[in-house]
């Protein structure tokens, strides 16, 4: 590495040509291919049962996606994760905006909230099992207990930093209660809320797995755990690959939706900052 490889600002402006971007896209997929290739070669070289080749694992992925695992484990897991995420989103936005807008309430609750969100959420799984028993309800509750915090925090911060002018205009127009929430508070804070939602989505998937390992008899987490304990090594890897793809898919779909839903925002902030 030399000083010459440090990014220089003057060059960066020109680097957006399509040729450049194509090369970059190519390079990024090549990077992935290189890692997978390395996996394949290492696995062949090591020849260990606990480390199957990539091709073996991916062929098991194909079997799982066409068999009963898809409807029995993967689909229920996706539904649980998304249900937990949606509850967290609605709850987080409502609580966060309320606490951020009603200042005295926010100050009153902040110590308590700071403590609650510091609890490592997997510790709550035994608690949730004691309350709700085993199964989907427990899993969803644990997901909410983990995923709601980034939404609350982002909504709270955004509501506090809201442009006072917006609120003044809203008051002049006589907006109150729910109308104020829907027409001013929510749109003004949406960009920040989306940042929190993205984190919440990946947390949902992560917590889902632990919750299912500890307290469910279906689902992808249960499947992976079961495969590990019965020493079905390629199945274990296949489960993890499926989860990785699910995470990537969730994230990509989320970004596309965000770009759609917040399309108005980019033009607006560009115009106001002149």
């Amino acid at each position, binding site marked *: 590495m030399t000083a010459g490889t440090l990014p220089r600002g003057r060059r960066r402006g020109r680097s957006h040509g399509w040729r450049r971007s194509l090369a970059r896209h190519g390079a990024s997929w090549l990077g992935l291919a*290189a890692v997978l290739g390395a996996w394949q070669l290492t696995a062949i070289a090591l020849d260990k049962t606990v480390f199957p080749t990539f091709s073996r694992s991916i062929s098991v992925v194909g079997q799982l996606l066409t068999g009963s695992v898809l409807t029995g484990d993967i689909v229920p897991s996706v539904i649980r994760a998304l249900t937990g995420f949606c509850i967290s989103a609605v709850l987080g936005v409502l609580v966060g905006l309320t606490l951020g807008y009603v200042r005295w309430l926010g100050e009153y609750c902040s110590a308590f909230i700071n403590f609650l969100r510091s609890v490592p959420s997997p510790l709550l799984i035994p608690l949730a099992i004691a309350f709700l028993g085993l199964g989907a309800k427990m899993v969803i509750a644990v997901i909410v207990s983990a995923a709601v915090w980034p939404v609350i*925090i982002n909504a709270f911060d955004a509501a506090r930093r809201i442009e006072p002018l917006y609120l003044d205009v809203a008051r002049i127009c006589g907006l109150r209660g729910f109308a104020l929430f829907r027409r001013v508070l929510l749109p003004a804070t949406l960009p920040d809320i989306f940042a929190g939602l993205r984190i919440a989505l990946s947390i949902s998937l992560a917590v889902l797995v632990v919750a299912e390992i500890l307290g469910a008899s279906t689902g992808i987490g249960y499947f992976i755990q079961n495969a590990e304990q019965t020493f079905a090594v390629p199945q274990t890897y296949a489960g993890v690959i499926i989860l*990785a793809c699910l995470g990537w898919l969730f994230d990509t779909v989320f970004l596309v939706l965000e770009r759609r839903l917040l399309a108005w925002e980019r033009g607006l902030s560009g115009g106001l900052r002149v």
Partner: protein
Amino acid sequence: MGVVIGLWTVITGSGAVSTDNIPTVAAVVRGAAGSWQDLLSSLGATLETWALGLAIATVAGVTLGLLVGLSQWADSATDVIVRMMRPLPSLALIPLAILVAGLGVKMTSGLVAFAAFWPVFINTRYAVRQIEPRLLDSGRAVGLGRWGLIRRVVIPATAPTIATGVRISVGLAIVVTVSVELVVGTGGLGGYVLAAEQSGATGQMYAGVVVGGILGWALNLLFLAAARALMPWQAVVGRGLG
């Protein structure tokens, strides 16, 4: 906070809810006091795994992040991997890690390190790409070589963003540590809570959860204080209520 504890006392004390699932505050304190040696050694075990994993993750994340961020090609080549790894629930790797590395400290710390690596790495990489070009030009103008440039310009300029990444990892590492303990069922705070649940000791179970909350909260505060002391030139962007 005081109000909440007060409410808890009143509600459980009044018999409005069954104390099978929600114990009284006194029962939780009794639970903690009755097994304080267990609780303390569990806390120690959790902290040990956490610290080891986080240390590995921070060193590896900063080093690799700087290396990758400083080269455009390395940056492009790692893009898809990073986009796949970031949302990958590292907790899903617990069974895999058990399979490959057994049940020892190596497995636990390795898994914690793997999970905590990504926020540090991603933030470092991003921060290097975002360095104000004028800073680099000024550095070159006063005749700094590549090491001088990295040490005197790149690292100070990226430190606040790296600190944010490490702060995310601090919390993440605790979550992963506790999860592994829960799944494996031995040692640490996770093991303590699990054992309490299985033996029906509700008070102890809650005590474990409360201690976990205090731990996460204290580590976060400690980290913020350390960051402020180490980087007096930059106010650490503190995200938090109030």
